[in-house]
């Protein structure tokens, strides 16, 4: 089991008012799974992703990532978990605008203390994996939206994380580029990468093999892809 979330609650305090955002969320993800968490805005899906991504702590509950009890870790240890076990992909890419594609991809490696030469090799390999080896020296402004997102995916993958965590990965892309990103996710999943994707778009969610719906902070049972296919057929 890669992800194991048990009875996760998250409350926000707003002007002395306690607003519950997540209510008793249970989620298990096995290694090699491709999971989508779908919900409208305000449903608590971003909060859930922040918790899975070790950026936020739940108010109560239990959370294990690859067997490690995340909630007992200190800030510094959480940084290491984010560095080595989680690869983030964001809606708005978040590339460093003044750095080349290659430098962007090698950024996590520098935090991991990897030597310069090896950094370059591994970053180039990750770029090759997303099909952008010929854009290594390009600046983000010289890349299309889809290419930027692929650079971001290469950056997320460069440390060989246990899980790829994507927040609306196609949200800022046209449908054609979005489809290419979904193809890339499929390819990575076929290679054994565990993917957790958060989206409000059911078309995008349908690319995952398992879809959870989250509404008002409550998560529904998974809908297996095979079943949806049957329905469509």
């Amino acid at each position, binding site marked *: 089991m890669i992800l194991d979330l048990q009875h996760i609650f998250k409350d926000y305090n707003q002007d002395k008012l306690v607003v519950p955002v997540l209510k008793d969320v249970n989620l298990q993800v096995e290694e090699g799974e491709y999971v989508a968490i779908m919900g409208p805005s305000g449903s608590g899906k971003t909060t859930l992703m922040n918790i899975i991504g070790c*950026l*936020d702590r739940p108010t109560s509950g239990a959370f294990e990532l690859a067997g490690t009890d995340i909630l007992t870790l200190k*800030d510094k240890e959480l*940084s*290491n978990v*984010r560095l080595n076990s989680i690869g983030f992909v964001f809606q708005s890419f*978040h590339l460093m605008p003044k750095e080349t594609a290659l430098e962007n991809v090698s950024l996590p490696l520098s935090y991991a203390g990897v030597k310069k030469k090896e950094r370059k090799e591994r970053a180039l390999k990750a770029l090759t994996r997303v099909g952008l080896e010929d854009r290594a020296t390009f600046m983000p402004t010289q890349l299309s939206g889809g290419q930027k997102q692929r650079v971001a995916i290469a950056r997320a993958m460069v440390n060989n994380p246990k899980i790829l965590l994507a927040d609306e990965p196609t949200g800022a892309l046209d449908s054609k580029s979005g489809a290419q990103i979904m193809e890339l996710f499929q390819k990575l999943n076929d290679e054994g990468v565990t993917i957790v994707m958060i989206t409000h778009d059911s078309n995008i969610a349908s690319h995952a093999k398992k879809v959870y719906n989250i509404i008002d902070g409550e998560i529904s049972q998974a809908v297996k892809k095979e079943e949806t296919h049957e329905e469509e057929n």
Partner: protein
Amino acid sequence: MLENIRLSFKGIWSHKMRSFLTMLGIIIGIAAIIAIVSTIKGTNEQIKENLIGSGDNTVEISLYQGDWTYEMGYEGIPAGVPVINSQMMEEIKNIDHVVGASAYLSRQEYEVYHLNTSISGGNVLGVDNSYFSTCNYIIRRGRGFSQKDYSQFRKVALLDKDSSDALFQGEDPLGKTIEIKKEPFVVVGIVEKSKIFEPTINSIEDYYTYSQDASGKIYIPNTTWPIIYQFDEPQNLVIEVESTDDMTNAGKSAADILNSYVSSSDETLKYKAEDLLEQAKQIQQLSQSTNSMLIWIAGISLIVGGIGVMNIMLVSVTERTQEIGLKKAIGAKKSNILGQFLTEAAVLTSMGGIMGVISGIILAEVISRLSEMPVAISVPAAVGAVVFSMAIGIVFGVFPSYKAAALDPIEALRRE
């Protein structure tokens, strides 16, 4: 670390104007300090050079009675003060850094004549053969003293330029006879310092300080001394040392050795080394105290510059909130972010420091051209200035960097 420095240069370069304006406070402060320090150092070196003379590392040691040099009357050497013998000379020559030593006799003499011309206040010195090499004199014309001059008590004399000018006024003195205390001496040669050194005189005060020694000197063999004076007179000693910085210590050691042989009932009778370094320092201190005030004032501008750096770093942190959030999300620790911003602040102010040193040197050169004040660039001051400006960057960068490191990544990523 290297990665941080690379990022810093990139960041500074991408905001050239802003970075330059931020650095300006540091540049002005450092430039002012370097210019002041250079003028102080230039003045000090000139004072030292004027007093000591460049390259002539000799120290004079004389017998003092209280605060004044011992004045010979008719009574001869005071009781308890022995004549400097070869054993004492050996001991003195064995002092560290002493290259040579020579004992000589000296008197101020008013009765020196060539025909009807006299010099007043000239010095007659009875010297041995080692004196001229120890004091770096060379024979400019004629000859020096020979072995026979000493052994046969020949009445021969050497003149320096001042005494020959005064006595002969352009006439050729070689072979001519002069009278010292009514005894005739034949001038056999003219001596001169091997390195002629003219003190730089910028003001009337300088003139009084440096030009007291202009009356001439007349040298005779020490064996002929008793012909005009007496046997066994107190001697002076001149030692030559390796470098200027050895002068004080070697001079003291030599005086101590001589004093260990003194057994006079008069406690005030003592050999003392004239300490030119000490004199130079005293004059230097006068100019230094006013200038150190200026340095403090320039230091205030550095603090103002540092606050400017802090201000811009705070703006920079706000601007780069997203970048910081992303970096933290992908695994950067607080220390990574802290390091990045501290490095940026330190690189910024170090660059300001380097530019300040360069402008300071230019400023100092301009000052020296315009006011004819001497300047000397101090390498330690330049290095110190750059290190100090780096420290300013770190000190004033701590608060903004800490703020950056403490940002909540969720908040930071959400901000557009």
